[in-house]
């Protein structure tokens, strides 16, 4: 069932409220007063634009402008009047123009041609062409510049900036710019050195490339390879030249090839140093700093530290006493570049040690370098963990020394700081002892062919401790071998053989005697082995008993001997062995012929008589010089002889 549609009445009327102008603080609203009729009329008349042709845009413009003019006008109809006046002016101007135009004398009115001739296309083309041309020019310029630099780079080996970059990045030189100059640092301060000497160099761009080429062409023989670098370095004059540390041991009696160092201080030599590349130049200068630091520290320690015998520091030379008769000389030898030709010792210089003396010890120099580098690395690397408040570089024990109230002795233990000089003295002493043992062993090995001597130098060792093992054995059999061990420290030299330990007090003669004794023992041992092999019987045996004196060991005492009899006891041999002498072999004489009528038995013929020496060299044994082999052959011969005689 559809409901009848009832219309609802809706009344629309204007609001009885005026737009609110403002609120007061007490909430009272102030509304704008409504416009009166005349005001409303003038506002509407204000909106009329007499100049417009009724377009929308203009209307909008007027709408925007209207409130402004309305506000500024003092009299409500003023703007209307103004606009009417301007309209009147325009109309009268139009009327004038029309009047003049009709006359055609001064003005004519013609229809306007709507098609505008298109003159812009060629203009555009021209401007585009111009733009393209200028762009092409820029690109061309760029190409030319690049080509030029490429050619420059090809002509010179490297660009200055590139080389400077390499110098910093690849070679790791420290460079910085001060003003217009580039200053580099040669010192080892960043590596932990505390040497205060200045070590700066200046880097410049090499100005004249041709000069370098000329220099090399003048002396092609001596000059280093082609220097083609755009970098030129200049180092301070005190770092010029070549320096090395000269270390040597000197002994008074000169038995160990330590000849006397005749001149006390090494002379400064002058030499013409050819052109060198900046790398070698800087390397040399840095090496000079390093050597100077070594020598500076050594000389300082030699003066300040107390040693039992005072050290001598003269010029560039330090003299220390290792023992009463052995001295260590450390000197700094310099070769300065010589520029002028007059009055100086001149030599054709090659950067090598051309005036090295025979006593010069590379080992000690190397040790010195290593020691200083160790000091550097110790100062550069702090032991971790390290508290922020602690002393820099102090060990943990040193840090605890204060709170735990360490005494003087404990403190010294906590700071094991051994000086460079002390260390090199310890190492020199060890080196001296090592050289001593080696030279004695070499001599003995040369002298003795029969028991052969083989020396093994221990690969694992330090600069102040090492081992030398000596084997004595026969060339034809290795079953009997004798082993000796030399333990070399800085102050003490020990020799271990079997169960006995000898403390050798840097006495070459004693080392020699011990070795001779061992050789003697070895000979007797090898003979005993030969005897066992040939089934002979040992009647009596005695090894060499040395008699040692307090000061030095001289050969004396009882000789070692072996008394052996053939299996059938008809031949008796005596072998005596004495150090430093050849072994003697003696055969016991037996009675020949009939003894008497009463004694008829064969056995009485073998009664013992005197011993007679046999010369083993007469035996025909060209293939073997081994004593034990000869003995073995002799015993075999004798046994055979007795057997044939007997039967």
């Amino acid at each position: 069932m559809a409901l009848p549609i009832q219309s609802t009445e809706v009344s629309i009327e204007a609001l009885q409220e005026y737009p609110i102008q403002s609120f007061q603080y007490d909430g009272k609203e102030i509304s704008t007063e409504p416009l009166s009729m005349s005001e409303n009329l003038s506002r509407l008349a204000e909106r009329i634009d007499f100049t417009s042709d009724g377009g929308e845009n203009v209307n909008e413009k007027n709408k925007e402008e209207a409130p402004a003019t309305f506000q500024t006008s003092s009299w409500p109809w003023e703007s209307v009047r103004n606009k009417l006046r301007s309209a009147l002016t325009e109309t009268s101007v139009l009327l004038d123009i029309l009047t003049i135009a009709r006359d055609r004398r001064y003005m004519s009115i013609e229809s306007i041609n709507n098609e505008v001739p298109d003159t812009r296309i060629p203009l555009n083309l021209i401007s585009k062409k111009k733009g393209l041309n200028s762009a092409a020019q820029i690109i061309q310029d760029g190409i030319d510049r690049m080509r030029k630099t490429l050619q420059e780079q090809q002509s010179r080996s490297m660009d200055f900036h590139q080389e400077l970059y390499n110098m910093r990045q690849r070679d790791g030189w420290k460079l910085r710019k001060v003003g217009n100059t580039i200053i580099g640092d040669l010192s080892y301060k960043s590596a932990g050195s505390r040497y205060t000497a200045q070590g700066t160099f200046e880097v410049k761009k090499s100005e004249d490339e041709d000069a370098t080429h000329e220099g090399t062409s003048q002396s092609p023989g001596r000059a280093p390879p082609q220097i083609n670098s755009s970098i030129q370095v200049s180092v301070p004059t005190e770092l010029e030249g070549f320096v090395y540390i000269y270390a040597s041991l000197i002994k008074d009696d000169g038995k160990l090839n330590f000849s006397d160092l005749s001149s006390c201080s090494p002379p400064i030599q002058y030499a013409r140093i050819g052109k060198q590349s900046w790398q070698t130049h800087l390397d040399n200068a840095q090496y000079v700093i390093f050597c100077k630091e070594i020598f500076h520290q050594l000389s300082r320690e030699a003066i300040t530290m107390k040693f039992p015998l005072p050290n001598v520091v003269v010029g560039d030379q330090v003299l220390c006493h290792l023992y009463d008769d052995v001295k260590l000389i450390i000197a700094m030898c310099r070769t300065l570049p010589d520029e002028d030709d007059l009055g100086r010792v001149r030599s054709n210089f090659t950067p090598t040690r051309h005036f090295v003396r025979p006593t010069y010890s590379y080992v000690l120099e190397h040790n010195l370098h290593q020691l200083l580098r160790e000091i550097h690395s110790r100062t550069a690397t702090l032991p971790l963990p390290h508290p922020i408040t602690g002393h820099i570089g102090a060990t943990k024990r040193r840090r605890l020394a204060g709170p735990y109230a360490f005494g003087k002795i404990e403190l010294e233990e906590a700071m094991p700081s051994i000086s460079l000089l002390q260390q090199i003295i310890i190492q020199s002493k060890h080196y001296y002892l090592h050289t001593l043992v080696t030279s004695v062993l070499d001599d003995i090995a040369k002298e003795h062919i029969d028991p052969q001597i083989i020396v093994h130098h221990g690969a694992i060792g330090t600069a102040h401790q090492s081992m030398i093992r000596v084997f004595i054995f026969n060339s034809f059999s290795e079953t009997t071998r004798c082993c000796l061990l030399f333990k070399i420290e800085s102050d003490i030299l020990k020799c271990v053989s079997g169960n006995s330990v000898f403390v050798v007090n840097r006495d070459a003669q004693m080392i020699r005697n011990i070795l001779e004794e061992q050789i003697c023992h070895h000979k007797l041992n090898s003979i005993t082995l030969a005897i066992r092999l040939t089934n002979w019987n040992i009647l009596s045996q005695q090894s060499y008993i040395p008699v040692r004196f307090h000061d030095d060991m001289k050969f004396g005492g009882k000789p070692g001997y072996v008394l052996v009899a053939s299996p059938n006891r008809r031949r008796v041999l005596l072998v005596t062995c004495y150090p430093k002498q050849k072994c003697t072999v003696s055969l016991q004489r037996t009675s020949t012929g009939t003894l008497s009528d009463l004694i008829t038995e064969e056995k009485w013929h073998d009664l013992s008589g005197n011993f007679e020496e046999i010369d083993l060299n007469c035996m025909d044994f060209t293939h073997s010089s081994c004593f034990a082999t000869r003995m073995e052959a002799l015993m075999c011969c004798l046994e055979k002889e007795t057997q044939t005689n007997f039967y």
Partner: protein
Amino acid sequence: MGVNCVISVPMEENKSGQYVITKLQKKIENLGAKKAGHFSVDCETYQSQIPIEGQVKVINNVHDTEYPASTFSFVENGPHLVADNTLDMLFAKMDSFYAPKKNFKIEAKGVRYELNDFLIKVGSVIIGQNTSVKGILLQIDYTPCILYNDSWGIITELLHILGINPNITNFFKSRLEKKESSVDYTDCAQQYLELFNSVRKSMTVNQQPPGMSSSPVMIQGRM
């Protein structure tokens, strides 16, 4: 480090301090002791500039050449501290809180002797810049032992031989009363501090009423 006993040696009347020291040294040398360098124990006093809990606090810093890396710091009637030598630099920076008392630095220095197991130190006490001897201190260390009770007998014997009455410090007494109390490294510094304080006290007493004995502690010497 063994048991150490520090005592004050009485001055003789009408004799200079140096005379007493020389006499004592001669006695020690006659026993066969050998000179082993010099020693010095000094004490610096710092005073709090701002009162803490309503009172002025005093800190004594003692340095001993026997422990060259350490500073012993004692708060008066309070705890003590053993620290590294850098503590002095810290105090120098804290002078607005703790300022050193001027002319209050006291020092005992003299010769060190070694007599077998004993370590004997004879020191003259000097206050501030004044070089005159204000007192004489004798330290005897018995190095092999760390127990007070066990070593007290032998130390007394040595003191008797030297003819000195064993007038020990309160600190040492308290140690002896405890059974089996062992040595700590602050002991020596504490004894020195006690004796230094008594020397200072006697100085102030001497200055106020004139005509008192110059010896800091009255001990009857037995020669």
